[in-house]
């Protein structure tokens, strides 16, 4: 929830302190997955169906549970904990295990360290329960299950409920039913009996908690991005040479990508100057690529379009290239004469390269293309999209074979009012109309194409009757009457487009 509060603060502005629940759709309905303190206080429990919960607490606020985002959040918290120790493990979904052996000197003792951590997280609104233990298992069990304080760790562990053993539900219930309610109760009995009933893991778990068996934590590792770099003994002062090095790096990175069947889409070059300044160059491509020549062309475009030209100053001593975003790109056939064959038609590939080039020069969002939208309303039936966005649009309506187009290429926005003369009631075209002070005599007309308003936007949107008309000089217009005669007393006419 604190994730939500941080990421989407607008949800919490000015809202009363109603209980909050996170829900998850599972088979058989929507169930509560997590609750805030208010919710717990109102007597709700995790696992309740949303309908039941609402029946009890009608003002419950509900958000969808997003375990993926929660995990990401936990990862970020774990990153933050690297300030204490390099060895941090996740205890999903809501725990972290820190190996602080040898790390406490900076904080003058482990308690200080814990207090610091609690403070930091409290500032973000997180409530932390922590415990120290000789083994990660003991610490985890104590943090999650410990009740009253105990004089020492051994006794604290013994007082833990058997649930702290982390066995499956069935085994836990069985132990409890047998009257063995604390870890101590279990420890007091011969381990062979436990193992015979609950498996060897159960006995191992008991030993771990009692510290007889050590289990090191498995620190998490971040997924390595592709990053290649070249250090120079002497700073190099020429930009051209730096770019040459960048090209070599790109080829190296492309090799790595090819091994992984991937292609890069977002590339970042960093030129570290000897005096400490860093110059960044970012390029993106519309499709994943490993094409070094293409990349270098894009980098050069980028450099050309920089407001301040690259200034090597005292020279660069480090060049680094990172692939920030990579997507799947399968190997393609090699051409006989060498080099990778282009997939798709040359023309298409050429358009993609042009787009990349234009996008790099003009800005990604400024190169656009048309997309179809699924709508009856003509002016809403297409829209402009950034050319590089792979947003799928609705399929274009295929023109009917042997029929003239129903709609013109050119649309006026907004439609131009016209003065119609002698239109047939109720659904005929005008015989004559005036547009821009010119009177057009309608020689031929076809229609109406009737398009009703989108009632769900507003109730009183009038229906349009479109006509394709041709005047005596052969010019073709697309005109419409805004409103049926039954809807409007004297509906107005507009010219919406011109046929070629």
């Amino acid at each position, binding site marked *: 929830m604190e994730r939500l509060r941080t990421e989407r603060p607008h949800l919490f502005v000015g809202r009363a302190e109603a209980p909050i629940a996170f829900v998850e759709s599972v088979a058989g309905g929507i169930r509560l997955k997590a609750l805030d303190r208010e919710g717990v206080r109102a007597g709700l429990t995790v696992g309740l169906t949303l*309908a039941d919960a*609402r029946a*009890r607490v009608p003002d419950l606020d509900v958000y969808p549970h997003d375990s993926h985002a929660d995990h990401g959040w936990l990862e970020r918290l774990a990153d933050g904990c690297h300030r204490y120790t390099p060895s941090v493990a996740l205890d999903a979904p809501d725990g972290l295990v820190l190996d602080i052996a040898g790390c406490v000197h900076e904080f003058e003792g482990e308690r200080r360290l814990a207090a610091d951590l609690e403070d930091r997280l409290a500032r973000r609104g997180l409530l932390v329960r922590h415990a120290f233990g000789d083994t990660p298992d003991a610490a985890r069990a104590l943090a999650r299950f410990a009740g009253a304080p105990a004089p020492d760790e051994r006794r604290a562990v013994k007082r833990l409920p058997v649930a702290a053993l982390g066995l499956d539900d069935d085994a836990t219930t069985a132990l409890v039913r*047998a009257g063995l309610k604390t870890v101590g109760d279990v420890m007091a009995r011969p381990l062979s009996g436990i193992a015979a009933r609950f498996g060897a893991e159960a006995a191992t778990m008991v030993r771990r908690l009692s510290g007889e068996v050590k289990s090191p934590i498995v620190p998490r590792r971040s997924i390595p991005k592709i990053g290649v770099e070249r250090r120079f003994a002497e700073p190099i002062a020429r930009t051209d040479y730096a770019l040459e090095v960048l090209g070599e790096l790109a080829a190296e990175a492309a090799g790595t990508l090819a091994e992984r069947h991937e292609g890069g889409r977002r590339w970042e070059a960093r030129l570290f100057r000897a005096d400490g300044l860093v110059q960044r160059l970012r390029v993106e491509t519309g499709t994943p690529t490993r094409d070094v020549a293409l990349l270098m062309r894009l980098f050069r475009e980028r450099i050309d379009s920089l407001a301040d030209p690259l200034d090597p100053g005292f020279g660069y001593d480090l060049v680094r290239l990172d692939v920030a975003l990579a997507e799947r790109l399968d190997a393609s056939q090699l051409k006989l004469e060498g080099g990778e064959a282009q997939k798709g038609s040359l023309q298409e590939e050429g358009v993609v390269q042009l787009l990349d080039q234009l996008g790099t020069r003009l800005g990604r969002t400024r190169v656009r293309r048309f997309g179809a939208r*699924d709508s009856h309303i003509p002016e809403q039936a297409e829209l402009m999209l950034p050319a590089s966005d792979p947003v799928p649009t609705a399929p274009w309506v295929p023109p009917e074979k042997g029929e003239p187009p*129903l709609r013109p290429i050119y649309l006026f926005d907004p439609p131009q009012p016209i003065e119609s003369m002698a239109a047939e009631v109720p659904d005929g075209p005008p015989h004559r109309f005036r547009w821009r002070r010119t009177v057009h005599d309608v020689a031929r007309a076809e229609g109406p194409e009737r398009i009703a308003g989108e009632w769900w936007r507003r109730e009183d949107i009038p229906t349009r009757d479109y006509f*394709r008309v041709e005047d005596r000089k052969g010019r073709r217009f697309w005109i419409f009457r805004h409103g049926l005669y039954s809807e409007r007393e004297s509906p107005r006419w507009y010219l919406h487009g011109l046929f070629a």
Partner: protein
Amino acid sequence: MSPPARFAELVAATSYSFLHGATQPADMVGHAVTLGLQGIGIADRNTVAGVVRAYDALNRMRLGTLGMMPRDDFRLLVGARLVFADGTPDIVAYPATRLGWGRLTRMLTLGNRRAEKGGCILGLGDLLRHADDLMLIVLSDCSAGPVTPAGDTILPPRRSDPGLAATLAALGPVAPTRVWLGVTMPHAGRDVRRHARLARLAAEAGVPLLATADALYAHPDDRPLHDIVTCIREGVTVHKAGRRLAANAERHLKPADEIARLFAAHPDAVGQSLALIDRIAFTLDDLRYEYPHEPVPAGWDPQSWLEHLVWQSMIDRYDGYVPDKAIALLQEEFALIRERNYAFYFLTVHDIVRFARAQDPPILCQGRGSAANSIVCYVLGITSVNPMWHDLLFSRFVSSKRDEPPDIDVDFEHERREEVMQYIYRRYGRHRAAIAATVIHYRPKSTVREVGKALGLTEDVTQRLTSTVWGSFSTRFDERRFKETGFDPDNPEIARLRDMVDRLLEFPRHLSQHVGGFVLTQGRLDEMVPIHNGAMADRTFIEWDKDDIDALGLMKVDILALGMLTCIRKAFDLMRLHGLGDHQLETIANDEHPAVYDMLCKGDSVGVFQVESRAQINMLPRLRPRKLYDLVVQVAIVRPGPIEGDMVHPYLRRRAGKEAVEYPSPSPEHGPPDELRTLLGATFGVPLFQEQAMKLAIVAADFTPDEANELRKSMATFRKVGGMDNFQAKLLGGMVRRGYEHDFAERCFKQIEGFGSYGFPESHALSFARLVYVSSWIKCFHPAVFGCAILNSQPMGFYAPAQLVRDAVEHGVEVLPIDLNASRWDNILEPSARRRGDLAIRLGFRQIDGFREDWATEMARASPFASIEDLARRAALPQRAMNLLADADAFRSIDKARRDALWDVRRTPPKQLALFAAADAPELGAEPDANLPAMPLSEEVAADYQTTRLSLKGHPMAFLRSHFAAEGILSSAQANATKDGRRAKVAGVVLVRQRPGKGNAIFVTIEDETGVTNGLMWARDFEANRRAVMASRLMVLEGVIQRSEEGVTHLMTARVQDRSDMLRLLSEDHALTPPLARVDEVLRPVLTRSPDPRTRHPRDVRVLPKSRDFH
């Protein structure tokens, strides 16, 4: 001036085109009539499910009850729009003759059987093979959506090109002069050109054009609703639906002159609609019905065979002496049966009942319903209600004026009904027997959810809205409901939602199969009505529901399942087994033993059929039944009809002689002064039964039986039809004209209205009353047998096993715990150790949640067992079974307490290793004693509840008594002894929560170790206590004790505290959830599908007060 245009719309879809049409059939016909069309053709997508509604509506309009009168030559065509899976353009087919109808329904059946439930897969080839006597209108394109084929059906190949010309060419030879090409005016921009092309095509194929609006709804204003159903169908929001919606609102019914104007270029196309109509001779009246002939032996005609059977059985029934009155009655009924040709019907029912009785062991069954009150049924043993004993005023089983088929429902033991159904399939064949459909309608909750989704509202909003719907039966989504949730009803989005929901409510959603209504025919059933695949394997159902069947006058036999019959049969078996005599339903039902009534008068009726609900238990001491007819009244009176019509109190007062019984008379010239006395005499002048209400309209207000029937139907559906005002005026007018006072007439109308559809027919109450008596009799004289039988018949009735066991214990029955050596799967009776000659109930393994019958069978085979290992080895039980037994504390007889048993069971491997088996040696070595701590009693109880939902060791409340006593909280016994008007606090575990009738009172019954307390809370107090009432398993009720003069005590509750956490004190490890009664409405909201009880699930009829759930 040219003569006014004449036109009939022949392509009209209705709501039965499920999510394709947006107007109900009746409204479609109504609008066509209003527009002055010459006729209308109802053609839904691959179905004829809606045509009977249209037909019925037209008939009712002709009767003048719906406020509009169709022109005399108005024609209704019934057919279907064939939507093909192979890309063939849609074709509308209308049968010209009865033969054509049979072809159409057979073709649809074929398509239905190919598809998964709800689909229909047809190809053009099917039509070519079934085209005899069908008039076909070919439309210009195919509107098929995806269908799921059933099993290994292969979908016909989809044609890439609609192939209009090819279709016409293919139809030419098989249906010469019976094909039209439909043209529409969609206002799509190139209509003129399209028309020209179609005209050319038609000319080439030599078929005429036919103008149509291809209507999907009646009125242009219905477009938004149609868009919404389209969105629901496509699973998109209206904002994203785009071109999946129609561009405009043109597909509505249009008047003839408008059509003539639109098709001015093709005037013949307009006229062809009338030409087609003229070719059609078929109407639904032609579905003359023939009952199956099976039960009649060769050489007999049905009537004489029936009479022969009756005369034969007569001697047995009347012990050789047949009273003259019976003979007279019989003659009268025979005449009626002959006149209406019902002999086959009676013979069919008799045949089914005879089959059930002839089984070994026989299946108990009992008939009910209006026809079941006939002496013919009694003599044939279909029912056991002797019309001679009960002077049934309304026993005329069919009014000769009313053209309605007789109605007999037969209840069978619920565990064995399947045998009867299979017999019917065997005897009549699947092509002649099928179950009726139930139309599942849109109910408020689902409607709000689906419409909300289509309008793009988030689930959150719709959840909040639906959370306030009380019960799914309400037919309107009140403005109040919206306000309650804090939404502004004027907000356009909300207003739109409300409007749409209101319009979509009562739309059919899909067809499902009825629980047990069988339709049987002599000829092929699939030539009468299309048949669908049911959800259950091997079940098929027809696509008409009970109302449709009624409207067409088809025969239906209801084969229903009744839990109490199972219970009674099991009780009879137990009594036979334990030497308590050989009993029959009949012998017991007639003995009228005062001890049985004494028991009922005390309200001691837990487990008894029908009268075991809280409301009934409260009524028993007030009504004080002393004879069978009192039970009939008892069964019928605690129903919403009499309660809301305020008939209960007058009845009780008059019965107790506290109020004079008076019968207003009509003016002498209009009728005998005692006409109401004859009618209402048995119920002291208060109409309690549905028949009385209808008869009242006939007798006092001069309704014809048809009108009375209309009245009944309108009562069920008055929201839709809105014809109630007509009836009110007619009834009041009729009564006043006949000399009754206006006041009295007004009151009568109120009562009839209050009755609505919730009145209970006497004919059913009579049959039920007998079962009430029989079950009471067993409970009264053999409580152990009764307890054992009812436990073995679960799930049924109102109460959970815990409450039934407790009731048995309170009646002095010893109940013994589950034990591995003594128990069987079923609960059994064994000699009581406590008192010689008594029987004790030994709980069976079926009481253990999750235990399986085959495990129990294995155990019975190998028992007795000496040890846990012995059990595991010889009964070959899986680990889970062993765990369950240990959890249920079933090892006491081998001296293992629950914890020790559990501990040992976990170590015991389920199968013995071959080596040890060969050596016949114990596999497990000795092990040091684990010295498990002993289990405290409170925890034992909690564990019992967890595994078997009941405990014989104690009541959970007993362990908490000291806590509550310290707080000054009373026990139930103390509360029930408290003086009237005193304040009291009572604690107990929740037994049942109900919110009957109009919902202004909430009943909460709680239980402790001393008994039960009945809490009653007014709705105004409920909101503040909502959470506690709904979430508690253990609650404290605070309020004032109120004691009625009959000695019924209620706690008028003002405050409820949730003390469920106290249950944890019993055991921190066993989550103790005291079982609720089966009818608890918070746990199991009452899902009443339709306000008309005749279309409701027959088992729902016994849920006495109409209730609203708590969501």
